[in-house]
């Protein structure tokens, strides 16, 4: 897939950017929601890679805030495609989850036909990603939350809004993540930066 252009940079996809919002679990047994803070720690659009930390506050089943470290794949048809191909996700699962995003609907036919490899995603107003939590930062694995699955994520270039659906065959289906880019209370946007040597 080297022919595909990589997505152009976006102000809200830079290291240090903070997001805040909620995660919802709603099914027949329970209806829960908790606050989630996310911060991007690393971003390498060239390789379709990003990573960051995710903090879940007021989780009913956990005593303290839970911080995890996650790594992400950007669906750019260059490094990664719409089909996950790992983490127990079949192409059917992929399509089912992607289709939950309204901005995916115009693409869904093509994706179902040929995996959407021909699509030019670089100029699309949304960026599709997968975020996979790798480890717990501040607590042990028995904290009441699981990181076995991963998030299908739709990110809006325009305002940095993030929508996500969690997929884990053993957890409640379609747990929803809703985040917005935040200034963290400042009277304007502030940008930090670092660079590896």
């Amino acid at each position: 897939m080297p022919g595909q252009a990589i997505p152009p940079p976006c102000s809200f996809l830079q290291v240090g950017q903070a997001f805040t919002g909620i995660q919802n679990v709603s099914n027949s047994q329970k209806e829960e929601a908790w606050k989630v803070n996310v911060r991007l720690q690393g971003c390498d659009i060239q390789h379709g890679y990003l990573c960051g930390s995710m903090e879940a506050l007021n989780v009913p089943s956990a005593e303290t805030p839970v911080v995890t470290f996650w790594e992400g794949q950007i669906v750019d048809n260059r490094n990664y495609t719409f089909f996950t191909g790992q983490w127990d996700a079949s192409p059917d699962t992929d399509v089912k989850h992607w289709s939950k995003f309204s901005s995916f609907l115009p693409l869904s036919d093509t994706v179902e036909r040929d995996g959407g490899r021909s699509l030019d995603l670089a100029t699309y107003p949304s960026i599709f990603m997968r975020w996979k939590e790798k480890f717990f930062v501040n607590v042990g694995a028995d904290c009441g939350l699981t990181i076995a699955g991963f998030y299908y994520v739709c990110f809006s270039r325009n305002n940095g809004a993030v929508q996500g659906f969690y997929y884990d065959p053993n957890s409640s289906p379609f747990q929803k993540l809703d985040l917005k880019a935040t200034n963290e209370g400042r009277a304007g946007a502030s940008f930090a930066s670092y660079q590896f040597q």
Partner: protein
Amino acid sequence: MPASAVCTKPEDLVESLSSLDTSARLKALRDVKNQIIGNKTKKLSYIKLGAVPRVVEILASDTDIPLLVQSAAAVGSFACGTDAGVKAVLDSGVLPHLLRMLSNGNNKVVEASARSLKMIFQSTLAPKNDMFQGRRIDLILALLNSGNENVSEVAASVLARCCETSEHQKALADAGCLQSLVFLLSGSPKRKEAALDALAALTRGNPDTSAALAATGAVSTIIRTMKDKSPRARLLACMCLSNIGRACHNNYQQEWDIRKSILSTVGKLIDENGQVGEEAPGVLADLVANNEELQKTAFDFNIIERLAEAQCSIAMALGHESEGVRIAACACIKSISRSVKNLRTTLTDERLVWPLFRLLNDPSPAVQASALSAVSNVVLDFTPHKAVFFQCGGVSQLIQLALSMEPMLRLNAVWALRNLLYLADMSVKEKVMRELTVSTLVDLVCDSEEMVQEQALAFVRNLVYGSVASVQQIFAADAAILHAVERQLCVATRPEICTQALYVLSNVAAGNEYHKDAVMDFVAPALTGDRSVSILIKFLLDMSNPQLRVAAVWCISNLSFPESPGVGTRVARLRDAGIQLQLQKMFDDPCTDVKDRVKTTMEQFLCTDQMTSNTGQSVSCRLHPSAALTLSHSSWRSVLAARRKLYCCSNGAANRDAKVKLRAAPWSCGVVGSTMIIYLGGLHVPLSYSGLSIVSTMLSSDCGLDPQVKAISLVVLQSAELCGAVWLIESSIRQFDTRLTCMSFDQMLSGRRGCLLAAVIALSSVILSALAKPGTSVYLENNHYDPALKELLASGGVSLCATVAVCCGITPLLEEFVYRGFVLTSLAAYASPPWAIITSSLIFSLVHFKAPEETLWRDQLVSLAHLVMTEQPRAEVGKAALWRAGDTVGHQRCVAYVEGLGCLLLLCSQLLHKEGKNKRTY
């Protein structure tokens, strides 16, 4: 004679080494050799006794084969395993003799000499340059081609150790060494290793010899060797291939596959014990250096993780005595640390971090530079090392290096400081700045090297990232740093520098009002008369680099941030500086990010305009109290309009905080309450309620005042109350920084049908109520609660004019100003419109509460009419207000302004009857 042999003292033995008797010499040699083998103490004592020169003497001068064999073997024993031994044999000048012996006709002599040479060259003390003097190189070459495996192996090992400079490499390659070595690859495992070792040495960092080796066609043999049984052979093969690969891109087929197999081979070798395992990380670092693809592949192979498991060996390597090993270890950490994940996991080991930080003080500049690169990754925010770094004086050391005359060291030190400040908390920033000082930072921002400038600006950007306190730091020492950044923006040409500088400004502009204004003074100086074009335009126009445009637009976006008090002035100034015009041209920018940011910023400009029109009226309100009535009307409407606008904007531009909060009330919540109490207690009650009795007391008239005096007094009292109220409210006005809670306006504002309908109903009800009574004037004439008014109106021209002025002018003006302009506007800022209306009506009703003998139905109508005419919400709101407020309390809002505002007919009829329309009593 076994007894005597055993009893021979070492001194005697040494003495016997120089015996004239050949057999005695031979016996002594054997004895010495046998005693020192594997015994370090004996070795040292014989060295002390001067045995080595005597042994070498035998080698140099004797021709007897057994003697030569034994002396060569003894030299080897001395040199084996101890540096003191190596030093002793070298000092006695053994090398030329040993080399000469390699050409001896006797095989035993040759092998013994070869072994000894090997022992010597295993040590780091072995001479290197010596071997390239005179004809020795030819000798070694000849030995390399020797039929004796041991000899050629030794020659190859000697080459591997001695070949250090590119001159050596070139000389040896020119002499045909490569071909000979390639031939040796097919020999015994030992010889193969030696040959590979030599080949690796010959090609290390040298594209010419690497290419020459590739040209010999040996590559396929070496590739096969990567699967050799011996780990050392595998490692050496990888080294050779890595050298070739670096030198000759695309020189051979499946280059990429080979690179990957090299990588996987080296990756596995990390797990080996001993020397191979220790050397493998260095080879790996060398292999993946400056090759992103390979680094990624290394990542895929989990090599990094395996490396991290080998961190003990890296930690040891960091403290190794050899400079090269220390550099390789640093390079290795640098490679591992290029991943956030590793920084958060494997690199949290203090055993690695402490020795690394210590290497910043290394005496060798090359090691310092290498350590610096690794440190600059390791100090990033995700790691818990910052505290450790401070403890061991790392910051001071970095700052020292940042002052270095060596540009590379300076660059890397500033780079490390910049990474250190990434998302750092205030205490870290303060500590660093205390040691670095403002003046040094200014010097670095204006450094002679552009790369250093860029990193210094990025440092400032991280310094001012975050809280207001962080931003404040750039204003230290008369804002020297800010001015330096601004200077760079004016003169710098490299886009990378300008981008960093613009982000500095943008971060400063995310601070408080003072900070924003400081940035304003640079990007849009407030000039008298002539309007200059903003410096930002230059970057907005720069089509070469979208990053520059993005940074510039963010700067503007932060300056026009809707929640800040001085935003109106700033937007006006930005517009004067030509920014808005330029932004409008950028709606179709080829870069999506720029386009999105421009759109958001323009929406902020628009919203600010709406808000400003409101603010402007509040200001003029202050100047012309008489205009308060009309102003408070339009002010309220413009607030609503602005809100609606903002609400729409916020739908479209939700990048702002989740709820758009805006301020429309120039009064804070607490001030509204206290102002009302002061107004009622200090102005309204004394002047409106007891004003006339005070006047009559002052004029000492017991039987009531003359109607004319009464009327004029009313004018004076009401005017005084009006002026007082205006002054009071205006003095409590404040800068716009109130936060309003978000409300749902669409419900309130959509559709006007309800308002019109309600207005019609209300008016017809009022008219009907008047007509229902006998005579149209009944409603007015039988104004049972104000007979006094009738008296005033009937007693002459002056009295009539004054009363009309009071009732139709001053009082409505006052009440409009206080209750609608002030109370309602303020309440609407903190509550939803229906509640604001109801509450303000309640307050009004309570203040003007009258005895309940009033006819309730009329008051309800009046109330309805009033609400509908003035606030224009939907009819439901009016009704709600009516039933809740009007029904319970005698709501007496006067019909006067129902008529005054909308019902000309009624007004005319009232004037015609020369009756006051006002039912309000004093």
